[in-house]
């Protein structure tokens, strides 16, 4: 397998300014603060984190909606931060994005045909007939009918709209699709359908996904590799099974234990783990390990020394000083995943 996307020490600081003419910078929101990871072709990389973790900012940096403060983004070995606009225009057709809210991500004044064909109009001089043919094929791929091509977004339900958005993301046969909370706004029954569509499309078209979400269960289901973010930092990266069955970072553990599972017996047995405190502001993140004020294992060292991502074998990286101790001290030993009935 080859690496399609590699991010190296990516940083994005948003200045907090005052005044319009005489701008004064009061400080910075360190939304993304030195993040590195890579995605291999054909796999799904899940990026999880709570609000303010910087996960969406990373997606926006990759597609060029934002310019990074420093660091590099290699897409198929080309550093996107070092190329000019024209070169970027050629590369951007190889990636696309699916948004969270299907009610705002489609222009209400365009019909489905116009929406899905727009990337072709921008990037090719294909004739109309051919464009229409491609749109019909795409509609079929995402489970919509040809007749739907001339309807408008408001005539569809949320799930159908998200299918239209997926079709639009597929129009130029991209290599990488960034799905930013792509199923979070949908109801459970519809969400399941969209997840299934995304997964079967990946199989058929060898797509690569960067799947950004806050819902751990969804990320667990769809991803091959997972990165956990906290306050602009990647605290743990690893294969799906490593992250969900053998989490090393205390934050990952806490996140997993905080999710209520739809089974009263399990819930009675394990309860919810409650992490103390709030998510701190990314303007003045805590010193040392950013998680230390909320961490049940924190020591003095954690307040002073910032941990780096350390490989614990099999590409399972965690940024914690005490992974070994925590591993042995863990109260709840997870059972291996049961297969579904």
């Amino acid at each position, binding site marked *: 397998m080859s690496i399609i996307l590699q991010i190296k020490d990516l940083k994005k600081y948003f200045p907090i300014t005052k005044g*319009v003419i005489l701008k004064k910078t009061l400080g910075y929101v360190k939304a993304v603060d030195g993040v590195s990871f890579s995605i291999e072709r054909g796999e799904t990389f899940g990026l999880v984190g709570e609000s303010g973790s910087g996960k969406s900012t990373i997606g926006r940096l990759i597609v060029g909606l934002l310019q990074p403060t420093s660091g590099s983004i290699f897409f198929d070995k080309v550093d996107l931060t070092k190329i000019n606009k024209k070169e970027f225009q050629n590369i*951007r057709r190889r990636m696309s994005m699916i*948004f969270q809210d299907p009610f705002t991500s489609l222009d*209400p004044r365009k019909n489905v045909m116009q929406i899905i064909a727009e990337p072709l109009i921008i990037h090719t001089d294909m004739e109309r007939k051919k464009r229409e043919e491609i749109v019909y094929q795409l509609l079929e791929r995402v489970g919509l009918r040809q007749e739907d091509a001339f309807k408008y977004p*408001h005539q569809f339900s949320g799930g159908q709209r998200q299918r239209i958005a997926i079709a639009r993301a597929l129009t130029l046969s991209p290599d990488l699709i960034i799905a930013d909370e792509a199923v979070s706004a949908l109801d459970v029954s519809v969400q399941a359908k969209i997840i299934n569509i995304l997964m079967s499309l990946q199989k058929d078209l060898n797509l690569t996904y960067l799947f950004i979400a806050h819902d751990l269960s969804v990320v667990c289901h769809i991803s091959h590799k997972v990165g956990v973010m906290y306050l602009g930092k990647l605290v743990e990266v690893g294969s799906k099974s490593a992250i969900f069955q053998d989490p090393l970072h205390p934050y990952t553990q806490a996140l997993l234990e905080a999710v209520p599972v739809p089974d009263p017996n399990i819930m009675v047995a394990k309860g919810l783990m409650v992490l103390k405190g709030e998510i701190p502001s990314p303007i003045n993140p805590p010193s040392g390990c950013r998680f230390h004020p909320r961490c049940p294992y924190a020591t003095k060292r954690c307040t002073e020394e910032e941990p780096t991502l350390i490989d614990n074998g099999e590409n399972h990286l965690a940024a914690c000083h005490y992974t070994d101790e925590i591993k042995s001290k863990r109260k709840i030993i997870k059972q291996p995943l049961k297969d579904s009935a």
Partner: protein
Amino acid sequence: MRPLKDLKKLLFGESSELSIIIEHLKSDKPALFGLAVIILLVLMAVFADFISPYDPNLQDLSRRLEPPSWEHPFGRDEFGRDILSRIIYGSRISLTVGVVVITISLLIGTALGALSGYIGGWIDLVIMRVADIFLAFPGLLLAIGLTAVLGQSIFNVMAALAIVNWPGYARVIRSQILYIKGLDYVEAARIMGASNARILASHVLPNSFAPIIVLATIGMGWAILAEAGLSFLGLGVQPPTPSWGSIIATGRDFIFRAPHITTIPGIVLALSILAFNLFGDGLRDALDPRLRI
């Protein structure tokens, strides 16, 4: 069917907004009344040559100030001219002023508002402060001042009214664009690599027009009233060209001897403005997504 569809596209984009508006207006009686009066006004202005019973400038000094009769339903003025015919021809001035003023205001307002909202930064700052300066003046007073400087003519009236009117449109367009440019579908277009021009023309502007249509409709009423006011003060059309404002102005001297000269054009004027306002209100309700269930 096709041309009608194209017109619909042009006016309302491709959504079914027109059908939503029609659906709403069907049950909105005041707005329907407004629309009927507006249509009547337009017909009157367009077919003035055919429907006006007399030459509006034909004088008959022997029968001056004659009250309404079967022959002259609205009576005669101080020169013995038929008031009905003068009102019919006057509607041409009123509507022309309304349409021209609103169109110019819209063009200036949309262009500057779009620049302001889409580009932002210091351009936004400069345009909005200029707009503030215009908004700080009482509109009609500024128009009076401008016509006084530019000279008395109907073109100057229209120019003056447009100059005082554009900042409102610029503001609404700007805030609309600020909202829409942050929506996901605009970001989606940007990620696709669409140029700024394409995004603005194809996504942002078409979605910004709904409140402007409402504002323009109500603005028509305002422009007609303002023109009448300026003509009343003698700053508008030059005699003998009939205008509602000037008819009222000349009737002023005979208000006790021949009240019909002032009251009848006054009622027509009030009715027209009411019609535009009612229709504008109806449009606003129809376009308000919160009222759609």
